[in-house]
């Protein structure tokens, strides 16, 4: 016979279970985003006292919209890839790519995206799984091996981070 006092505790535990699961997923997502190096390119870098460092006040907001760049160097010789000082713009044989705003802003970030859109982007290497190709240096060939659970955790975390309104420029094709 179960003591009556145990019932409320069990009920409370059952009610709290989804919250714990969400927290675990968020923590897992934060961990994956951290170790997968997302901040390396999706957070603009600045010069700090100890040298270059990610500007976490603009965490994962992509290439800053107001940071205009001159034309990229030609991808010639053995040095075929170049990066802007923020680490958010990359030029190479594919043209110029600007890292995306991963914050949940509805107009300029992932705010309108669904889990399916995110998962299919990583799996297919196409924007929202259907659009333009996702360009270097995004490591799609490696990231497409993330498990569904990993991608769910990552997307859940990205939807929880502070919103930054920042309209990233569209990629440029290779110079003719």
């Amino acid at each position, binding site marked *: 016979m179960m003591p009556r006092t145990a019932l409320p505790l069990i009920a409370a535990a059952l009610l709290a279970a989804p919250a714990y699961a969400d927290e675990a997923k968020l923590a897992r997502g934060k961990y994956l985003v951290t170790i997968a190096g997302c901040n390396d390119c999706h957070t603009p870098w600045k010069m700090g006292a100890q040298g270059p460092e990610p500007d976490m006040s603009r965490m994962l907001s992509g290439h800053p919209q107001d940071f205009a760049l001159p034309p990229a160097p030609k991808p010639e010789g053995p040095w075929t890839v170049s990066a802007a000082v923020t680490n958010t713009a990359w030029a190479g044989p594919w043209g110029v790519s600007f890292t995306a705003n991963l914050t949940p802003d509805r107009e300029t970030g992932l705010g*309108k995206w669904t889990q399916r859109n995110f998962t299919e982007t990583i799996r297919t290497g196409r924007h929202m799984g259907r659009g333009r190709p996702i360009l270097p240096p995004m490591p799609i060939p490696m990231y497409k091996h993330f498990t569904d659970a990993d991608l769910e955790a990552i997307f859940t975390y990205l939807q929880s981070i502070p919103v930054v309104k920042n309209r990233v420029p569209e990629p440029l094709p290779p110079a003719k």
Partner: protein
Amino acid sequence: MRVLALLLRVLALLWLAGAAQATPPPPQHLDDTGLFEAGSSTAVRPENLAFAPQYELWSDGAAKRRWLYLPPGASIDASRPDAWEFPPGTKAWKEFSQGRRVETRLIERLPDGAWRFVAYVWNAEGTQAVLAPEAGIAALPVAGAPRGRYTIPSRSDCLACHEGAEVPLLGFSALQLARELERLAASGRLRNLPASLLASPPRIAAPSESARAALGYLHANCGHCHNHTGPLAATGLAFAQQAAAPQASAERTLHSLSSAGTSVDVVRRVRSSNPYVRMPPVGVSLIDAKNVALIESWIRHDLRLPLEPYP
């Protein structure tokens, strides 16, 4: 020991049953897919029905021919006018020519209900078409193609467009074949089509023929991904027209275009030469000048929506 022997026998039977049901790989040659008469690479078998959708997908100006095959005795269930149910064994071919035959794509419904997408590449002499690699061919030399290069899509490219719609076989639908519905229903290959659509074939709701053509163009070129029920529904762009709800679907498209910046963005993308911006993102390298002008004129003069960037 006896138990072990019995277990092994059961496992062997299960394996054999699975092997018997396994789908064979696609044929290496188009000749073996059932499109042509035996020994011919031009004479199409009479059971393969030639068809043409009334609103076409722009494919860099390629000339296209299409055929549909249904297994003997099988038919299409048209009870949902905008999501026809095709029987397993259905095959649809689409041939692309740029001066000469270049490619024939095949969509096939497998016994388990899944859809398979493959492409066959014609030799320069036009005598044989061979299965294309799964990764596609980025730049096949074809003299008649734009800039002398033709892209064979990868399987993943096929899915990017065809999986955005509820039924992956695009172009064979009540709206696209409105003029053929009576003939199809009479042949017995199309059943359960609502009588109202037979009495009055579906038509895009529009106040003029040019507006209807513009909506039809958006339907055929954008609607398979940008519709209100598919994976991109959250983007708020709904360009698919529906046979069952012409008024509602046309209104959804007008509403999409009316939201801030959308009309500007649509025109900017369909006329862009930047491959990372251009829409549709697959299978297009040339701007469809005639139809882009149609869309621009419709947006500017009929809808009175802006075409220039917002301040």
